[in-house]
């Protein structure tokens, strides 16, 4: 063993980075959902600010569909999309800060951001579904499940909760800007799906296309049920 010659990294360049390969780390469904959510949230904000409340409601329903798909894809999708693979406990986060984390996909701290964003958006959609506008012209599809006063309160919270969503989005973008400065273009990876994978790291196990199709069908079916007014189509 000792007699074998060993290559020694020079300067900052580690051997493993030099040999890392571009591989698929985000599958297509995950990337589509990401950019779809970004666009729909922007559109939801724009439409309600410009008095297109009907578009705003449909945009929210589209977000609901995307969230349901993402939830199922997080259970049955590609390895980097699965919650069980990227959500880690406090010890995993501590190890990450000590530089002991290696892998592809979300880092343990990035995972917290993902979960917080998805949860905040889900809460926002849920509030919107039971809200009504203050003029009695528009109602979320599930508003009749609760009282008129409760729907008004839901709308008030829906307006306030947007600030929470906005805060998380700003944090998310700030983190990406930080990584960019450090030389890691995360945005490009989220567009092409290709990221650097170090040798010895298990590559992404891609999900099955027919599983994605089943997740999609389920997402549309559940959204359709919500649009109909839920339980047996109404209160």
């Amino acid at each position, binding site marked *: 063993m000792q007699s074998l010659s060993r290559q020694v990294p020079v300067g900052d360049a580690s051997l493993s980075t030099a040999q890392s390969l571009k591989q698929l780390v985000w599958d*297509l*469904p995950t990337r*589509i959902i990401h950019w*779809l959510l970004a666009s729909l949230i922007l559109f939801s904000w724009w439409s309600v600010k410009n*008095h297109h409340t*009907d*578009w705003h*409601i*449909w*945009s929210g*329903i*589209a977000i609901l*569909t*995307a969230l349901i*798909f993402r939830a199922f894809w997080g259970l049955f999708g590609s390895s980097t999309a699965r919650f069980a693979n990227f959500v880690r406990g406090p010890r995993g986060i501590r190890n990450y800060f000590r530089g002991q984390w290696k892998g592809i996909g979300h880092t343990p701290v990035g995972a917290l951001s993902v979960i917080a964003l998805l949860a905040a958006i889900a809460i926002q959609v849920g509030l919107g579904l039971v809200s*009504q506008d*203050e*003029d*009695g*012209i528009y*109602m979320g599809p599930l*508003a*009749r499940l609760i009282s*008129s006063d409760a*729907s008004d309160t839901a709308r008030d919270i829906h307006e306030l909760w947007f600030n929470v969503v906005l805060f998380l989005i700003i944090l998310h973008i700030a983190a990406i800007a930080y990584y960019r400065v450090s030389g890691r273009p995360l945005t490009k990876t989220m567009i092409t799906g290709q990221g650097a994978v170090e040798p010895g790291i298990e590559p992404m196990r891609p999900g099955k*296309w027919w599983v*994605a*199709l089943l997740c*999609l069908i389920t997402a*549309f079916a559940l*959204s359709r049920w919500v649009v109909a*007014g839920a339980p047996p189509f*109404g209160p």
Partner: protein
Amino acid sequence: MIRSVAFMFVISSALAACGGPETSQANNVQANLSNTASPAATAPPSTVTADAFSEISGEQAKSVMHERHEGMEAIGKANKSIKRELEGSAPDLVTVRTAATKIADLSQKASGWFHAGTGPDVGKTGAKPEIWRNTQDFAAKLAAFQKATAAFNSTASGSDVNAIKASFGELGQACKACHDKYRSEMHH
């Protein structure tokens, strides 16, 4: 497969384009002017008169602003109760008719809710200063609203649920036409 994801989202957003028709501008609506003492002899008789925008101040202004706020809130509440009935499979038309009459009555009172001197510079209100810069347009929209409430009240006295829904949709558009242009987010 992925194409179909994008495609179906396009469909779902296309479904969004199912808003109601824009209501036509109303004309020849008699508006009762309360709250003002001066006779409006020169004003045209068949619309919300210029006198509706005569200047008031002090306690009178405060009182009009309060009445406007309460009145608009009451209209909103009545509208919501109608909306909730009409969204259901078996609307209670008694509830709808009671609310429709209330809205029609309040809409007539609205002619006295927009005197000059009741804008955001005087107190907290969602009424934009644009109201008093475009009184002609505003008066036309207010008259259209009053026409829509009367039409809806009349349709609601019948039992044709589809006609009631259509008429309610037109009333909503009349509310929205004014609110989109002349109401700020500084209300509640």
